């Protein structure tokens, strides 16, 4: 019952790895954590979802907010390592089309 993020700044892109459950309870902390990604300045953003077990609409909203901020700056947002259940949630909500899923 926890949520953890790890942020890594690389030459060409910003990487944030998610671990655990991004539910409503965890979303406010996640929002804080994701603020660093708003200074992307054209660099690409990679959201590593390998260890993300769960996401609720509160989490989806954070992702949506991020892409709305990043796109005008010319940054791409990539999602990696999603499991099938998570992938289904993205499919259902049309989010698969908004992100570049690897």
């Amino acid at each position, binding site marked *: 019952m926890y949520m953890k993020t790890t942020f890594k700044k690389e030459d060409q892109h910003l990487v944030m790895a998610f671990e655990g459950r991004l539910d409503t309870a965890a979303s406010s902390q996640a929002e804080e954590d994701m603020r660093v990604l708003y200074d992307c300045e054209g660099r690409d953003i990679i959201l590593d979802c390998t260890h993300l077990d769960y996401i609720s*609409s509160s989490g989806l909203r954070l992702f949506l907010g991020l892409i709305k901020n990043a796109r005008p700056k010319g940054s791409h947002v990539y999602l990696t390592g999603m499991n099938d259940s998570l992938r289904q949630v993205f499919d259902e909500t*049309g989010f698969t089309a908004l992100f570049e899923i690897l």
Partner: protein
Amino acid sequence: MKTTQQTTKWGSINVLIAAALLLELTTAVQYFSMRRNITRQLTEMAQRDVSETNHTAELKREVERTTTLMLPIVERYTANQADDSLRLYIEQILNQQHDIVGFDYCHVVGDDGLRDGIYIYKNDDSGKPIEQHIDFDFTRRSWYSEGIKGNGFWSEPYMSNYKVILMCTYSAPVRDEQGQTVAVLGADVPLRELSALATQIYKNQQRSLLPIILLHAIGLILLAFIIYRSIRNVMRLQAVDAEKERISSELLVAHRIQQAMLPKTFPPFPNRGDLDIYASLTPAREVGGDFYDFVLRDEKLFFCIGDVSGKGVPAALVMAMASSAFRLLTEHESAPEYILAQINDSMARDNDYNMFITLFIGVLDLTTGQMCYCNAGHKAPMIGSLPLPIKPNLPIGALSDVKFSAQETTLSSGTTIFLYTDGLTEAENNTHEQFGQQRMQTICTDTLSQTSSPKSLIDRMTEAVHDFVSDTEQSDDLTMMAISYNKMQSANSNSYHIILPCDVSQTPRLAEWVEGICEDAGFGPTTIMQINLAIEEAVVNVMKYAYPNGSEGDVNLEAVTEPDWLTFTITDDGRPFDPTAQGEVDTTLPAEERALGGLGIHLMRKYMDSLDYKRLGNRNILTMRKHINK
């Protein structure tokens, strides 16, 4: 503190001994000096008596003769009422006489009670006669009252009214021609010798008085000192008593507070047929370091028993910390090893006094009988008549970052768990024999073969321990808890219930509850996640929209599993809010055009098979159903 009291006590005893010795000494000195004086005086008096008896008899005869000779002349002057001549005559006689210091001449007091009398005596310095009207009631004097009766009379010695002198008076009646007594003439003879003797006695006494007074003064000072010391001690004792009183009343309050921390209503769940609990805690002092607790949440019983190292107030403080941590953590955590790790981290962080707790935590799933438990150095609880296999693990608070590993077992219906602290097995009788594991185990076996009642087991155990230790003082806190579990025979349906406060941080708890139900219903992980998502969205919507802006309220969830359907009913008494009335979001729009809201209801619709909203009275009722595909 103790040393000071000791010194004071010995100091007082020394002072008392000195005072007693001094008193004895004073008495002894007084006794011997008095005895010496009295002996000497008696000797002197005896000698004087012998030599002076003759002299006194001579003196008496001389005075009697003088008076008798005077009488006819005095009678004549009296008859002629020649007062001046009478006075002159008496003065003349007085001048001639050496042994007589004064004459009294008093008329007989008649019926009118008028007194008339004169006293003529020699001035001490010049020896000249002085005349004085007698102003006291001479009729009370024996020389008068006896003198008027007839013959001459010698009075007992008495103190003169006019001179500081002891004297005797020889008195005789003065008669008229008819022989009637009209006046009394008295001659005063001083007892000079006797006076001298008295003075001597006094002087002798004075000589031995100084050392006695000195000794007495020292005695008084000592006595004052003792009294001062006693008063000081009494006052100090009173202060100590007041302090003791304060501490014991505070301890009593602490005792009550500590007792209030423990669940004490038994049976705690009278409406449940599957669970009965009984516990008892007897601290060795007012407060102690033992504790037990249990919490029922989402069809899971969280229970613990713990024993803080040490006794009394320090142990009680740590116990309070640990037991409140247990309450807090069990509100949202379900893994006993995680709860233990959390308590351990907070305890070990600032554990300057190296206190530690042995703690056992169990989580019993009442729907399945599955028990997950984790032990931190505590005694193995009994499951029926056998000890539960436990990993020992380190006690809580010993080291931080300890990995605790949980264990699992499944309880069959009708099992009684017995938990205890070492106050039970290590209870000692007066020969320092311990109650021991074996006795405890035997009582468990015997009692549980007859009944599974937790209260009976603990009553039996308590009685056995009391019989064993008899009147030996209890040396350690004694705590026992028994839990009996009877698995409900599930029919075709199961129902579950949870109440959440209006707080989105409760969602992990919700997720856990939903997952448990879904697992029971046999759903796979993906579906479980989807149902979870749908329920979370529904509940978060209620929290956000039915109870807007942090208003308070509960969200009531009920779940029923039937052979084909899993039904969730979410009820709240907030503002009317119908999630099903929300329009569908367009999931095909590009990101820039997508709204941030509306996703929740979309997911609810997608992942549940039916969604139904009702407003009944003041309540929103949302029913969500999912088909179970076996």
